[in-house]
């Protein structure tokens, strides 16, 4: 039993940290916040070259066939940098196509994702704000050998830059996940402006959007997407929280009031200790879940829900407390703390919010 990273995993983490420290500094994040697309083509191509986009994809698709732990390591670093990027949604969709897709779907999308030529996303939310298959309102109807999709998907991450969107819909009462090209007629994307400009979301309207009858993944893909999305989001939130903790501790060592560093006041020191506790627990929750899903452990789905619900609350508290430790400067736009505070917050409702995952936990353990 070994909970620590292997040397390869540690190397991946270090090199990702070095790359992002160099190329995704807070100043770059701010430039992308102001950019209409919100992400950088050059950065995306570099991620492809570094092997990040194909990390968990098979080698014959140009990937490196690594697992969810490695993906989580990268996502933690991306969260730590508050890097604006459709990384999570793209990798998630690609993993689902890899697991459930037909050979044709795989060859169409996986090499394109791994090579940086395609972005993808998943449309898991609707008006009902419930991630269960029963509450899906989007319909899939057979029309002359094709399928027409109709419905409205809410808060779809990075839909405005996606080439392909995974769309859960009901055909009769049978759920499936449809693989929809964003350029197909009948698909329209309306971007929203939200609290974190580094996590773009959009409303996706399907107005009889036509897809080939075979362009779908089985219903199991739905739970797969929710679980792995949950762990990916937890990893990013963990990264954001760790960054805030580090900034708070550094600040508490140097900022002086009443003739002494504020870190010598227990009110501040104890807050920092609690933040560390939350961050370490979040680390355990995130990587346990990543490992459990990757290795097919029987509690993988449970662990994913544990991670998402726990880390949502923990990261909100840690990032918020970091602002408190900083005082007024922490409330300014110029100071970088809010980049991470907002990143953690923006991920709370995506891939199942804490409430939903707690309900999933209860269904599993208290039936």
């Amino acid at each position, binding site marked *: *039993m*070994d*909970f*620590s*990273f*292997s040397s390869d*995993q540690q190397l991946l983490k270090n090199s990702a940290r070095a790359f992002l420290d160099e190329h995704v500094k807070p100043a770059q994040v701010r430039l992308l916040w102001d950019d209409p697309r919100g992400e950088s083509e050059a950065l995306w191509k570099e991620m492809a070259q570094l092997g990040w986009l194909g990390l968990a994809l098979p080698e014959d698709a140009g990937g490196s066939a690594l697992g969810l*732990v490695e993906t989580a390591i990268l996502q933690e670093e991306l969260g730590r940098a508050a890097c604006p990027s459709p990384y999570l949604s793209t990798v998630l969709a690609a993993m689902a196509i890899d697991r459930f897709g037909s050979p044709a779907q795989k060859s169409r999308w996986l090499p394109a994702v791994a090579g940086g030529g395609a972005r993808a996303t998943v449309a898991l939310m609707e008006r009902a704000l419930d991630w269960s298959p029963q509450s899906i309102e989007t319909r899939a109807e057979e029309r002359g050998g094709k399928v027409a999709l109709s419905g409205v998907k809410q808060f779809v991450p990075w839909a405005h830059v996606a080439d392909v969107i995974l769309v859960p819909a009901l055909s009769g009462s049978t759920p499936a996940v449809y693989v929809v090209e964003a350029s197909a007629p009948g698909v329209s994307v309306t971007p929203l402006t939200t609290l974190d400009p580094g996590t773009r979301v959009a409303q996706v309207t399907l107005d009889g959007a036509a897809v080939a009858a075979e362009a779908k993944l089985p219903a199991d893909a739905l739970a797969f997407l929710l679980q792995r999305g949950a762990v990916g989001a937890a990893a990013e939130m963990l990264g954001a929280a760790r960054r805030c903790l580090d900034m708070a*501790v550094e600040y*508490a*060592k140097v900022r002086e009031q009443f003739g*002494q*560093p504020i*870190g*010598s*006041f*227990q009110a*501040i*020191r*104890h807050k*920092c*200790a*609690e933040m*560390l*506790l939350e961050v*370490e*627990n979040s*680390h*355990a*929750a995130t*990587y*346990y879940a990543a*490992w*459990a899903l990757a*290795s097919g*452990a029987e509690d993988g789905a*449970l*662990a994913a*829900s*544990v991670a998402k*619900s*726990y880390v949502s609350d923990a990261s909100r508290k840690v990032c918020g407390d970091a602002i408190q430790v900083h005082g007024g400067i922490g409330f300014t736009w110029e100071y970088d703390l809010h980049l991470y505070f907002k990143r953690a917050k923006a991920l709370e409702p995506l891939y199942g919010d804490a*409430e939903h*995952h*707690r*309900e*999933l*936990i*209860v269904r599993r*353990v*208290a039936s």
Partner: protein
Amino acid sequence: MDLNLSPEDRAFRDQARAWFQRNVPRAELKTLEERRAWHRTMYDAGYVGMGWPTEYGGRGATPMQQAIAADEMARANAPAPINGLGVGFIGPTIIIHGTPEQKQRYLRKILTAEEMWCQLYSEPNSGSDLASLRTRAEDRGDHFLVNGQKIWTSGGHIADWGILLARSDPGVAKHKGISCFLFDMRQPGVEVRPLKQITGSSEFNEVFMTNARAEKRDLIGRLGQGWEIAQTTLGFERGGNSMARVTRYASAFDRLVDAAKKIERGGKPLLEDPVVRAKLGNVYAEMEVQRYAALRVLSALQKGASPGAASSITKLSYSEFEKRYYELCLEILGPYGQVTDGGLEETTLDVDSSSGVRSSWAYAFLWARAGTIYSGSSEIQKNVIGERVLGLPKEIRADRVAKA
């Protein structure tokens, strides 16, 4: 990263599981003698003092195997071994700092629980600030004369021996004048008065020492080395058993769910109430996180890392969680959670608490208040984490200023 048990550890687990299933006592153990007999059975099977070196009667087991055994013990609802302080940290202290004669005289009887041990550290005016302790040990040539009072002494009423911190030199800085002794509790001059706890039971005591003796041969380490010794041994108190602790929480959770099916509110079982479900989901997630964190600590221990100040994070985390956990259980159970006798069977009997005693929800709830006080209160743990893990500046303290 690989959280699977190694084949050897899996084999060990299966063996331990089978052993506990076969041997766990069917009837409740009421007297100390019955508990000692069960302790002895576990010892003979190799499940007590597993981490001790083989030359002193242990089996030199890895941290993982110790955790597995403790976990299986909890899973089988087995009564805990006795002499926990002796086996858990006084014995290991003697192994590290003791003389060959001390090892010969004391170690085996600690393991077999033939002699029971207690910890004589805290005093009425010296709790968190332990180094300010005032109990005196005066060198009288052939022995030390001990005068003073200890308090909160767990198991003092059944102890044959105690590990004692006393001031041997009042003339030097407070940390430097303390020595550590193995101390005979069954001598004239030692009076033990039980204190009744908020649980209603009396597991801790006041101990008055009036012209009592500590023998020269029972000094541990050097004169004046007591503080240092106490520091190394406090580390033993926290650590390897947190997996078993979570197993006990989990077994309580199952009881909670059973009760939530039976108890109704507004004509429906509590388990169908969305507010209750949200709370259950929340607390279950926290409990699982405690388990993952325990695995992480165990994996570090297994690699030979010494947890050091980081063990403060573990202690703070589980003790604060335990408080929230049983608070929430009682909140969900409402008045049923407060019944200690009578009422619904589901809500009164056999709930696990981290003290190892199976009793009522009310008992577990009350006992949970202890964990954030003993072995360094939560506030002290946060000081340690802040200063020694995060490297934050030390607080300005009156005693440090005075000495500077």
